């Protein structure tokens, strides 16, 4: 049994999102910071897309009724087990009924918590995600986040043997990542982020000057930041198109509404939209943006999709390597 004693601002189960339901207008959903989410699973020895907790802005307390490993990635928070502070532990072993407490997020926005155990979760469209706006998914199927005191029934857990205990040692396992992963984790918490994106969609309806302004100036993240999208403040970008027919929106699409201030669409967005789009933030950029908080600065860096894909393939490979070196298996 997993008990969420305190659920903080918004805590939800997440995974890599729904598949095959956007055609009926359902959001894609899924972990906003797909990188930290997969890393947490890799550290626990889970399949990379297994359900994990997504905590917005920290502040969560929980306990598990069995011994298991827990990995915490993404936004930085103070972590304590039974009121004992844990220093820079990313993955550690919990004894039966240990009380884990995460403080408010000090850096970043979304924290991911993965367990070397599986819990009974309702599935909607092949995913455990809940979408508030749609009132779909989640424990009650109404899209609501986890509430204080909510309990989840255990269905399976990895065997914690002597080898695993030695591996985790005291205060968590020593995690050493490849330079690419280490550098990327660091860049997620820069206060001025460079978001790789590609010009596409209605890009030809923007003048060369406006496109230049778009990549030359920095934008500020406003307070309007949620799982649907992020609104930016900065130079106003003008689009010549005024009456656009609604078109499908992809994850990371940068919409330019009449105000000229960009909105970056995210996982819980609506499937179609009517504003012109200047380009798409690629998956690397989306993982960077996931840990951005309001009033931080960002700059768009133009790249092409093939370059973006190469980076993504490298990261995917290295995440798999992290998983392969974890000495723990849920389905051993």
């Amino acid at each position, binding site marked *: 049994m997993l008990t969420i004693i305190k659920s903080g601002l918004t805590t939800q189960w997440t995974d890599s999102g729904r598949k095959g339901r956007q055609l*009926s*207008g359902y959001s894609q959903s899924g972990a906003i910071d797909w990188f930290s989410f997969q890393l947490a699973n890799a550290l626990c020895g889970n399949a990379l897309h297994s359900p994990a907790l997504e905590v917005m802005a920290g502040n969560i307390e929980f306990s598990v009724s069995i011994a298991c490993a827990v990995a915490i990635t993404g936004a930085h928070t103070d972590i304590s087990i039974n009121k004992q502070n844990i220093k820079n532990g990313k993955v550690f072993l919990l004894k039966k009924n240990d009380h884990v407490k995460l403080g408010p997020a000090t850096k970043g926005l979304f924290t991911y918590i993965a367990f070397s155990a599986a819990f009974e979760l309702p599935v909607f469209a092949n995913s455990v995600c809940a979408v508030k706006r749609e009132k779909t998914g989640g424990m009650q199927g109404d899209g609501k986040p986890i509430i204080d005191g909510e309990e989840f029934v255990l269905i399976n857990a990895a065997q914690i043997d002597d080898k695993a205990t030695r591996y985790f040692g005291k205060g968590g396992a020593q995690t050493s990542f490849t330079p690419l992963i280490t550098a990327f984790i660091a860049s997620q918490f820069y206060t001025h982020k460079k978001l790789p994106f590609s010009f*596409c*969609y209605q890009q030809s309806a923007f003048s060369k000057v406006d496109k230049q302004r778009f990549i030359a100036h920095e934008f500020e993240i406003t307070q309007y930041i949620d799982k649907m999208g992020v609104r930016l403040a900065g130079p106003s970008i003008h689009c010549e198109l005024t009456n656009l*027919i*609604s078109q499908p929106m992809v*994850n990371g699409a940068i919409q330019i509404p009449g105000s000229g201030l960009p909105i970056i669409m995210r996982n819980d967005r*609506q499937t179609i939209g009517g504003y012109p789009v200047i380009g798409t933030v690629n998956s690397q950029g989306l993982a960077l943006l996931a840990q951005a908080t309001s009033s931080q600065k960002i700059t768009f860096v133009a790249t092409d999709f093939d370059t973006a894909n190469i980076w993504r*393939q490298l990261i995917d490979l290295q995440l798999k390597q992290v998983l392969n070196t974890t000495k723990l298996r849920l389905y051993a």
Partner: protein
Amino acid sequence: MFELEKVQGYQYMHNAVPLDEYSHVERVSEVSIIIRVNEKSRTCAKRPALSLQARNARVKRCLALIKAKSPMWLIDHVVSYDSLLLVYEAQDIRYDIVLRFLLSTLAELKEPEKKKSHAKKTEKEIGHVHQIDVCYGLNNESQPSDMSAVEEYTNLTSRDIVNLHQSIEYQVFAIGFMPNFAYLGELSPHLRMPRLAHPRQAVSAGAVAIAGQQTAVYPSISPGGWHIIGYTAFSFSDDATVAMGPEDKVIFKAIDQHEYERQLKQAEK
């Protein structure tokens, strides 16, 4: 990639690749592409401009042709008026292979008239016709009606409005805004009117409404700016068999309040 550049009329710029004179493929993210059908011909200025309905039909034809081959890598798709989004699994397949697949699969688009009858057949086989029973003009505290406003604007009696609304087998132009919200068209020209000046904060689930050239059913409670002309007990569930699909058709049938309430009770069970 290099071979593709030799395809006639192909220009590797702005991530766009032409399919036929009206449509092209656009790369819109690492894992997705959009097929877009344009109003005007790219190659010949004298060719007729396509209506939105014709463009939407072409989009559906592309979808039917692609679905007929049921590619493994296709994990999701979205249809919206003149565009079709295809989402693939980047780990399973590369963009240039998807593009090659599309260029060969959609080669048929180039000779539109000859194979039209065949394509229409496949569309019909895939699409499902939803019959939606509507209690037109229902008006109470929780279910307001704009029927009188529509009567006034169109100069028609409510009976004519109901008949006109029922007279068409609607096609699904797009699905979005919220799950199962289908933009249905095209509405009779006599019923076309602008959206509400003051949108409602909450429109009840089952409201049947019209705006511009379109009509729709609100699948669940939501803000809305369309004119409500009736209510239905029909509920789109999360079950795939009653979910709205882009190839589906919709017909409306008038029922009285008794029947509506009976259906509503049945739906609750």
